[in-house]
């Protein structure tokens, strides 16, 4: 792990407020995830990868953007680990690294389609209003 | 000036003559109109007995000793004194069968010191006519409104109803219920302090308590402070001390005293009345009463001897001590 990556891991933990050590590796998050098959890394792996500090791998993964932010994993986790918050935090890291949002809050409405989950819309507003 | 109502005097005479009592606890006249002293009278001395608007002292504490003597004593108790009397009964300090409670009406008692504060000096005598008091002084006649010279305890009167009595001298005057005389709440003074910042409260109490000369008048007059030996007089208690050698001792004495009478203090106001330094000591006791009312339900010590006292009872749902930290954060 490079120094830079260590800092990244710390930042993800800080942004998300998640304590990855609480995870008991039961896999319920992945068991409940509706977009499991769209991901190369699954929610339980997110937790474990953040714990190991493998943030760069995550940042480059497609999984990051296939998460629906439906929060099912948060809802179901018996240890209150909240994997979706980690995903959100890693997304933020990507955006901050890019230096700016690749989207503006005002352009969110245009991108909304019918099937988009409410949480994703709210989350988009929150993210791009910063 | 006649200083006792004929009805009251005749009643006392009757009680002695018909053998109900052998003596009477009332007041004796002094040098001036206001310096009356509690005294015990027998059939022979009844002529010296008085009861008027200057007789402010709470007589109930004297009955601890008097009721343990031979015979039966008639006690002239004002409405507010009866609360203390009840509380002492609850605590088994008074032998009820040795006391004949003669409930006397009260129209509020006059504080000579308040008159002096109004610039009325050299007081020799006074005539009270309704709400007006005409003082005869060395420097001439001076009048003022009675409510301006009432004792602090009378300004926050709990009502004119006697909580306990064997007989009333004026049954027609006795109200159905105890209704506070004054329109304002007797807790206004406490609320005012509560609304200050901690810093302001600290300054206020330092200013007041630093005057304390530890004369123990507040304690010795207090009907709730009826311990055979006070912890502050008992070297074995570990807290005894004779002097307020510093700020801490002043605080300790008054906090512990207020705590020891918490839930037992009837708010008779004697502590404030007797303080030679005019420290508003009732504000300490009333704080406890206010807290008790707010946290554990209305409770008036001396109202009903059968009720559980707030500090010797509890409910499982009582507020947590943290409530002190939560409410009215300033």
């Amino acid at each position, binding site marked *: 792990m490079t120094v830079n990556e260590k800092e990244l891991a710390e930042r993800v933990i800080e942004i998300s407020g998640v304590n990855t050590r*609480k995870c*008991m*590796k*039961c*896999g*319920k*998050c*992945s*068991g*409940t*995830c509706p977009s*499991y*098959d769209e991901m190369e890394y*699954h929610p*339980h*792996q997110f937790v474990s990868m953040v714990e190991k500090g493998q943030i760069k791998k995550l940042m480059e993964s497609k999984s990051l953007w296939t998460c629906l932010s439906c929060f*099912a994993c948060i809802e*179901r*986790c*018996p*240890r*209150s680990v909240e994997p979706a918050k980690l995903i959100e935090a890693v997304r933020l890291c990507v955006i901050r690294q890019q230096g700016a949002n690749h989207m503006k809050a005002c352009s969110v409405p245009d991108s909304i389609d019918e099937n988009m989950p409410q949480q994703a819309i709210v989350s988009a507003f929150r993210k791009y209003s910063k | 000036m006649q200083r006792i109502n004929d009805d009251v005097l005749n009643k006392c005479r009757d009680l002695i003559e018909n053998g109900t009592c052998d003596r009477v606890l009332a007041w004796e006249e002094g040098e001036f109109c206001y310096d009356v002293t509690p005294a015990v009278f027998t059939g022979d001395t009844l002529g010296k007995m008085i009861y008027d608007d200057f007789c402010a002292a709470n007589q109930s504490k004297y009955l601890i000793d008097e009721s343990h003597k031979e015979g039966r004593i008639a006690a002239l108790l004002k409405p507010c004194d009866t609360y203390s009397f009840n509380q002492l009964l*609850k*605590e*088994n*300090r008074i032998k009820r069968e040795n006391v004949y409670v003669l409930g006397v009406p009260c129209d509020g008692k006059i504080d000579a010191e308040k008159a002096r504060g109004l610039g009325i000096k050299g007081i020799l005598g006074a005539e009270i006519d309704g709400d007006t008091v005409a003082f005869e002084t060395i420097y001439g006649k001076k009048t003022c409104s009675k409510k301006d010279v009432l004792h602090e305890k009378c300004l926050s009167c709990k009502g004119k109803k006697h909580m306990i009595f064997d007989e009333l001298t004026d049954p027609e005057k006795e109200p159905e219920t105890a209704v506070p005389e004054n329109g304002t709440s007797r807790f206004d003074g406490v609320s005012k302090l509560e609304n200050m910042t901690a810093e302001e409260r600290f300054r206020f109490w330092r200013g007041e308590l630093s005057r304390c000369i530890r004369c123990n008048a507040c304690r010795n007059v207090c009907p709730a*402070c*009826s*311990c*055979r*030996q*006070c*912890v502050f007089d*008992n070297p*074995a*208690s*570990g807290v005894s001390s004779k002097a307020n050698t510093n700020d801490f001792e002043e605080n300790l004495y008054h906090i512990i005293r207020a705590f*020891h*009478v918490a839930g037992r203090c009837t708010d008779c106001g004697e502590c404030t009345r007797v303080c030679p330094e005019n420290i508003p000591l009732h504000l300490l006791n009333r704080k406890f009463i206010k807290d008790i009312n707010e946290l554990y339900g209305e409770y008036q010590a001396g109202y009903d001897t059968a009720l*559980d*006292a707030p*500090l*010797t*009872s509890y409910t499982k749902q009582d507020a947590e001590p943290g409530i002190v930290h939560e409410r009215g954060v300033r």
Partner: protein
Amino acid sequence: MQRIGVFVCWCGSNIAGTVDVEKVASSVAGEPGVVFTTNYQYMCSEGGQGMIRRAIKEHGLTGIVVCSCSPRMHEATFRKTAQAAGLNPYMVEIANIREQCSWIHKDKDEGTEKAVILAKAAIAKLNLNKPLTAGESNVTKRALVIGGGIAGIQTALDIADAGYEVDIVEKSPTIGGRMAQLDKTFPTLDCAACILTPKMVDAAASDKINLYTYSEVEAVSGFVGNFKVKIKKKPRYVNSELCSGCGVCTEKCPSRKAPNEFNMGLNNRGAIYIPFAQAIPNVPVIDPEQCIKLKTGKCGLCEKNCTAKAIDFTQKEEIIEREYGAIVAATGYRPISLENFDEFGYAHNKDVITSLELERLMNAAGPTKGVLLRPSDGEHPHEIVFIQCVGSRDTSGCGKPYCSKICCMYTAKHAMMIRDKYPDTKVHVFYIDVRTPGKNFDEFYRRAVEEYGVDYIKGMVGKVAEKDGKLLVQGSDLISNEQVHIEADLVVLAAAIEPDPSVRNIATMLTASIDTNNFLTEAHPKLRPVESPTAGVFLSGVCQGPKDIPETVAQASAAAAKVIGLLSKDKLTGNPCVAHSDELLCNGCSQCACVCPYGAIDYIDKEVNDHGKREVRRIASVNEAVCQGCGACTVTCPSGAMDLKGFTTRQIMAEVDAICR
């Protein structure tokens, strides 16, 4: 002036590792009263105790301070040591420099400094100690066991076996408890009923055991050796003396609406019922909520059909008062409610069941006569999914943070039994960890996998949905790193277990403490695991923590041994640290009696000599056998007349002074 010896224990490196024990000893040498100080590796060892005894004699010590572990650990030890050397045992004070110092502070200077202060506080207190002598009280030679499950039965049998009378109070109509509901037991697969019912019969047959079934403890007062208990006997409406147990009434009863508790509600029972065939006592009970006669006054079919004339609708609740020397809590457990777990659909899908329900479905005496059928349509399930840790190890607030301990093993048992009986059935088990610490436990689990081909999937189920009569189970397989989807016929949830809710009330009555999960707290987690902190109250079975049958039985016997030890004594030495009123200071105001939880304070008229003045005064008098030494009275007493021996106002203030110096 006391002559105090200070003994600083190293506790090996436990204390000496973070506290400079020599410095502690030397720093307190100048304290008032101290005439001797030393330190030693293990003060509680025979060598250390011998050293204390010798020092007491050689230096004429009047009291000792031992700086060591918590007084809760070895105070009694050192008191005995002091007593052996001729000192009053209450002339011993412990400075807790291990649990509350060396174990929590890493910096040696800091630890040493604190240890010195703690030692000084103990010395300051000891300077004011007075020899105390304990009073004695009698022991009622009878025990009460609350709960008639396997734990309660075993405890009662063992106590009875030692020759003491013992009563069992069971709130349900029969003894037997949860174990009676089980089919087979792991890891031997012997039948639960076969091993339990003989014990139930023994309990009923014993002339030393008295059963109060369908009864509850109403109130407890008193103290160790002298408890007074009120037992509420609920009306059965059946006269147990007359009833022959023929069961005709239960067949004739027209009411069939009540869910059968014994079968976990999988079928219904009558208003008059016997929970199960081997129930003890074998006397039916009428459920007043269901009985048509009791509710409307009409019916009475049972009464008409009872040849023994045992039905008695006039029965009333009865309160029985008994005295006991010891009380054992054996209140057991229940599976938690699964309402919060809607992802598994337990509430709205009949084919999602709990493991305890499965027990009843597999049991020959159960609603399906032992044939495994789906509750929804009575069909044979062909694919079954077991989900473990439902509500266990859950800190999200929905479940319980602890491991329920028995689920791994009973799930393996269920999977194995199904595969054995119905080899064409596919069985999947979703697990987080498989925990098998126990004799022959892991072997048992491996047999399920290796011999019976149970499919163990490492991962958790996220969702169970119903579709066309099938249950779509979606879970993760963490080993193959894929999400699995199984179309199951039956889903079995290994629900967490929790203490029976009656324990809260019982704990309050017994003044026994319970932990955040409502398990009863033991006096010491390792050294006194079957005793409650309240003297005379003992713990048996799952009310203390999750455990399986052999552990429960072991603890039950252990609790019985403790009870027998207590009942075998003729006299109990009381706690000498009791309240005491100074008759010269007492106002007789009665406030102390208002706060005494034991009614230990009476008022007497006594002639006192107040500095030459003789007078009769009303003063407080403490019953030392009843006083437990809480000290509530001491603070209520404004004059300070009431004080607590061993924890006097002066002693505590001396400690405060020493700490704040």
